Every structure is written in C-alpha cells, then in structure tokens.
C-alpha cells in the first residue's frame, strides 16, 4: 500500500479522516491506496478533494500539492509548526479576477532560450483594474492579502481570513459584484493554507 499526502497538521486529533503520520513536530494526513493505483485516477482525485474539505472543516492545515506519496516521509520544514500555530483560526479565500486586457500568451517556438521565454511569460501576466483591486482589498476584511499572477487572462487575490469571517467575506464579494458588474470574478473557499503556507 502507498499513501498520497493531503496536508500538514498541528495535532494528531486534527486528522479526522484518512491516515496520520507523525513527522518531527507536526503530522501528515494521507489517503491510503493500492500500490498499483495511478495518481491520475479521476475518482482518486475526487476522494482526495473530499478528504481535504473534511479535514478543513475540522481544523486548519497546510495544503500539500497533490502528487506526494509516502513512505518515505519527506523532510520537515522548520516553520510548519509555527505557521500552523499562528493560523489555527484562519483559512484562505480566493478571489480569481479576469484580466482587464488579456495579453497574448508567448509561444515557446518563438524563443531560442528558455530564460527569454520565461521572461516573456512573466511579462504576459494579467493585469486587473487598479480601482477594483483597491475595492476588493477594502471590502474583504482580511488579515493579509496577496495578489498572485495565475496566467495571461486572470489574477488571483489570496486572502487570509478568520474562520468566523467566511460568511462576511462572501457577503462582501456579493456587494463587490454590484459595485463592479463588468469585472468577472469568482470567490471560492474556504481553503487550507496554500498561499500563506510559506
């Protein structure tokens, strides 16, 4: 059997579903599967997504990007425990915003070096109306926000919010939609610690 890792948790009791592995001063949650089960299996992805949601309902954890299999256990980052302690009552919400003027995506075959292609990709990152950005930051009463480029057509605001503020954030997004009816955006969450895990 093997285990696909779901998250990093502060306490053993935080892991309300799946397997739990002690790793230094934190715990890993994982879903057990047969050795021959491919990670790309659709049903498996859905099971892991469901387990993520169940775990988050129980307690905040650091999300591990899908694909890590244990054993062997991975090396521990020294800041994980402190991050988990600091954000015990917090979750993330995500506001994905369409770019005001999407830029064309560069084509790899037009570049002779990988570095030049990466630079062009970076320069093609989406930009969002500044007034909307300011209004979104003001409306969503977050502990911290980070704007992250997603691709050439969208930008994302990751907001660290208190668990008990999730409904208020949803209400703020509804008002924002009325205020900026022409800017397409999608609010989603709550999510475990993703952007604020580092």
């Amino acid at each position, binding site marked *: 059997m093997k285990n696909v*890792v779901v*998250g*990093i948790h502060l306490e053993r009791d935080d892991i309300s579903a799946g397997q739990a592995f002690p790793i230094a001063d934190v715990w890993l949650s994982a879903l057990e599967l047969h050795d021959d089960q491919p*990670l*790309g299996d659709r049903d498996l*992805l859905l099971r*892991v*997504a469901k387990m*993520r*949601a169940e775990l988050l309902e129980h307690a905040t954890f*650091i*999300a*591990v*990007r*899908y*694909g*890590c*299999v244990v054993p*062997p256990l*991975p*090396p521990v*980052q020294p800041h994980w425990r402190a991050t988990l302690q600091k954000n015990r009552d917090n979750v993330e919400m*995500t506001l*994905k915003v369409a770019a005001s003027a999407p830029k064309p995506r560069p084509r790899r075959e037009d570049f002779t070096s990988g570095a030049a292609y*990466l630079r062009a*990709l*970076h320069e093609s990152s989406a930009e969002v109306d500044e007034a909307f950005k300011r209004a979104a930051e003001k409306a969503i009463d977050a502990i911290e926000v980070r704007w992250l*480029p*997603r*691709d050439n057509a969208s930008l994302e605001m990751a907001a660290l919010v208190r668990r008990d503020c999730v409904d208020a954030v949803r209400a703020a997004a509804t008002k924002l939609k009325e205020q900026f009816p022409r800017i397409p955006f*999608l609010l*989603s969450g709550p*999510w*475990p610690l*993703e*952007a604020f*895990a*580092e």
Partner: protein
Amino acid sequence: MADSEEELSLLETLDHLLDRGVVIAGEATISIGDVDLLYLGLNIVLANIDALTRNRR
C-alpha cells in the same frame, strides 16, 4: 444554473488540489516489468505547464 455552479465549484476544487499548496519532496522508481530501471529523488507534481513555469520564475 445549479449544474454549472456545481461544475465550477468542482473545477475550482481540482485547480486548488493540483496547483496550490506546498510542494514536498517525493521519490519515484521507474520500473519496467519487475526491473527497477531508474530511481529518482524529485518533487513529484501533477500540474500543468503554466503552473510549472510560474514556479520557476
């Protein structure tokens, strides 16, 4: 409407699962039949090319 919202929610959930969160080291052994041909210590990530190029920047 409800169906499209459900679909959107599922897509967003899968996007977060595949493209967010910390990347921790993993290991893989590539085998053909019962013969282990290559042992790799790597970050095993299932992600799209956009995600990988963003991470390199």
